[in-house]
């Protein structure tokens, strides 16, 4: 473990630059801080404010750009341009949306529990922001590198379940609660595959800290652990309630959703929290599976991180655009009967390979990659056979099934064929009319 790496967080950099020689910064050579001696509390406060300002504004800015980018990408997938009116290339469209949302009337239903009703948007936005505290955006750009980083992420993303239930319950709306039940069932079903998929990654890296995981990726883990990335990706999309799992926000589903009673900016915060979750999920996938900020030297690490993040976001948006929705029972079946088994297979195979080759070298990673890909393909195929229903793969009709004969004229060989015989009609065709020259007067 490299102490300078651990100690290199952004927070510590700002604090030590301000505070100087005080405790904790002696390991580094900050001989003279910017502030005089006894004002560590001021350094602390300023550092905290700087971090909060930087991260929160950065993330919100990222969300604004993501909303615009997602709508433009939607358009391009659908052969149309996305929004391109407001601002250069339409980049201010989300600002216009935010202003519109703010001007709406904030309605609180009569039967609502006011405290919880107002608290629910906060409960959903706070965990979405908290996840960014452990993600390294580049060399040295992180707030804290907890040595239980992955566990922290899993724990914090689970808090959204509570927020959804609070939002529905406090609306006092019976149908909203029904919708929230389905959403909560979805969320908690997919927590387990999501967490278990990361066990393989943790075993390979030897630690739960995100910095260590990035250090351990001499080849990105997407090549080494295909099952894990497959399961994690699907589970993460379900956690974000994205297509194909967006049954709770479908307009053609239940007439009300759990968000039905939320009006202007509270709804806006739910909306923002969903996009923040999208960015945080993409960031997690980038860090854990694509190697984070690792890349080749001349290009700065932040740019590598950004490029990988954009790639993962593109894939998420692509999946959203292409796939239709699944029903709730199919969703739950997929989680419990499909993804869960795949994660168990992944853990077992990874553990066996680590037991055989205990030293963390790059060669071990290549061997694991070579073994894991065939295992992944075979197990996905096997699980899909287990889940699927026979006859579901065939797009063509069953030509052996009997065709219903109609009691009137029987055309011989009544099946899908070319009709060569002229049909015998019981209705006279128009040309057989007797008087086709009609003397009509007037015009």
């Amino acid at each position, binding site marked *: 473990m490299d102490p300078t790496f651990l100690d290199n967080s952004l927070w510590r950099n700002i604090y030590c630059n301000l505070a100087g020689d005080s405790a904790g910064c002696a390991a580094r050579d900050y001989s003279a801080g910017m502030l005089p001696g006894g004002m560590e509390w001021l350094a602390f406060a300023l550092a905290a404010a700087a971090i909060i300002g930087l991260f929160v504004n950065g993330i919100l800015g990222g969300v604004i750009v993501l909303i615009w980018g997602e709508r433009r990408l*939607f358009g391009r*997938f*659908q*052969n*149309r341009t996305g929004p391109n009116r407001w601002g250069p290339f339409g980049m201010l469209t989300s600002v216009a949306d935010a202003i519109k949302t703010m001007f709406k009337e904030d309605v609180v239903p009569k039967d609502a529990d006011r405290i919880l009703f107002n608290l629910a948007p906060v409960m959903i936005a706070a965990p979405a922001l908290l996840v960014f505290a452990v993600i390294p955006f580049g060399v040295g750009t992180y707030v804290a590198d907890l040595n239980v980083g992955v566990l922290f992420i899993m724990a914090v993303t689970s808090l959204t379940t509570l927020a959804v239930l609070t939002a529905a319950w406090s609306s006092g709306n019976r*149908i909203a609660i*029904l919708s929230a039940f389905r959403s909560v069932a979805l969320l908690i079903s997919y927590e387990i595959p999501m967490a278990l998929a990361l066990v393989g990654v943790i075993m390979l890296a030897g630690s739960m800290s995100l910095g260590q995981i990035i250090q351990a990726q001499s080849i990105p883990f997407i090549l080494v652990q295909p099952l894990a990335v497959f399961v994690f990706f699907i589970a993460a999309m379900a956690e974000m309630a994205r*297509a194909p799992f*967006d*049954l709770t926000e*479908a307009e*053609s*589903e*239940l*007439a009300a959703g759990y968000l039905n009673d939320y009006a202007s900016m509270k709804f806006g915060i739910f909306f923002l929290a969903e996009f923040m979750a999208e960015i945080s999920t993409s960031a997690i996938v980038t860090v854990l599976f694509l190697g984070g900020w690792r890349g080749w030297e001349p290009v700065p690490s932040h740019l590598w991180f950004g490029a990988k993040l954009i790639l993962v976001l593109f894939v998420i948006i692509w999946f*959203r*655009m*292409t*796939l*239709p*929705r*699944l*029903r*709730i*029972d199919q969703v739950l079946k997929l989680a419990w009967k499909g993804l869960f088994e795949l994660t168990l297979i992944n853990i077992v195979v990874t553990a066996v390979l680590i037991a055989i080759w205990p030293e963390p070298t790059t060669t071990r990673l290549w061997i694991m990659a070579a073994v894991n890909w065939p295992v992944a393909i075979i197990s996905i195929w096997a699980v899909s056979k287990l889940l*699927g*229903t026979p006859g*579901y*793969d065939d*797009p063509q*009709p*069953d030509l052996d*099934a*009997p*065709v*219903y004969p*109609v009691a*009137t*004229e029987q*055309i011989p060989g009544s099946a*899908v*064929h*070319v*009709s060569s015989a*002229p*049909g015998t*009609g*019981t*209705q006279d*065709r*128009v*040309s057989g*009319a*007797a008087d*086709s*020259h*009609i003397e*009509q007067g*007037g*015009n």
Partner: protein
Amino acid sequence: MAIKTQPVTVNLGPQHPSTHGVFRLRVMFDGEEIVDVEPVFGYLHRGSEKLAEERTYTQIVTLTDRMDYVSPMLNNQAYMLAVEKLAGIEPSPRGVWLRMIAAELQRVASHLVATGFLLQDLGALGTPLIYAMRERENILDLFEMLCGARITNSYLRPGGVFMDAPAEFWTALDRELVDIVNTLDELEEYLSGNEIVFSRTKGTAVLSPELLINASITGPMLRASGVDWDLRHRNPYDYYDRIEFKRILHTASDNYARYWVRVQEARESVKIVRQCIDQIEPGPVRPPFSEVPRLIRPPVGDAYVAIEGSKGELGFYIVSDGGISPYRMHVRAPSLINLTLLRDMLIGGLFGDLFVSFGSIDLNMGEVDR
């Protein structure tokens, strides 16, 4: 210990993005299973049949455009055939070929709309819908070339059509037929192998052929259950007996079968158009005004003609009293008749399948309410 549950009634009101028009559905469901369904329609009733008693036969063509507003050419064709039978008019051949081409193109457009919206209801967030609509836009541009308007065509007149196709129509049509087949291939590639579509649509809302025949259901819904009934083969009108095309049948009468039948029928319509282009001959598109005047007065009597519309058997029953307007006009709207099976389709199913099943009937509220 048995859990005591209570059924919930939800009103899917007249304004709803997935009800294909203004249609109200009161659904009572218990957990996820639908227990009772009560459809309420009539929000789009405009009194077309009563208005038809005030208008002359040519003016009623503009009324028929607006009944099933995604397939106006087919409405016009059904109405015109009824008028021609009532008045004993012999249509001119080129007019008949042109209206067959227009009708088959319209069938493709209508099936594209039906498929696109079915997939939209499945939740694909608009991508297949836009692909289908992109192709329909090209077909509507062809109609604009023919008659000046994209949707409210009023292209047909007693005895034929009112104007011949311009020269640029035929080249555009050839190009467009290739594009339609490409788009249908793309839609099928996208969706006919898609496991999510399979699992959502296969095995849901299965209807037996006996039930369908007893309920007078026609169209793709009937052919998806294996009943071999297509009016273009059984009672050929216009020149459909000079054209060869397959009858598309599917035997599993579920949502997937109905979607599949419509996509294949669209392909067959393209083949029909190609045969019409080969067989069309130059000539007048409309009988001269000395034979069929502008204001026709059919003799006293009645006539019923049904064609194979895009949604089923579309029939017009016209009673004439010898004057310039009909005494009574009644439309056998396939969407309304097909709607009567809604309860059989939905009750016992899951709530998630409601809009998918509803979309597979392919309703058009303009036709249901007239």
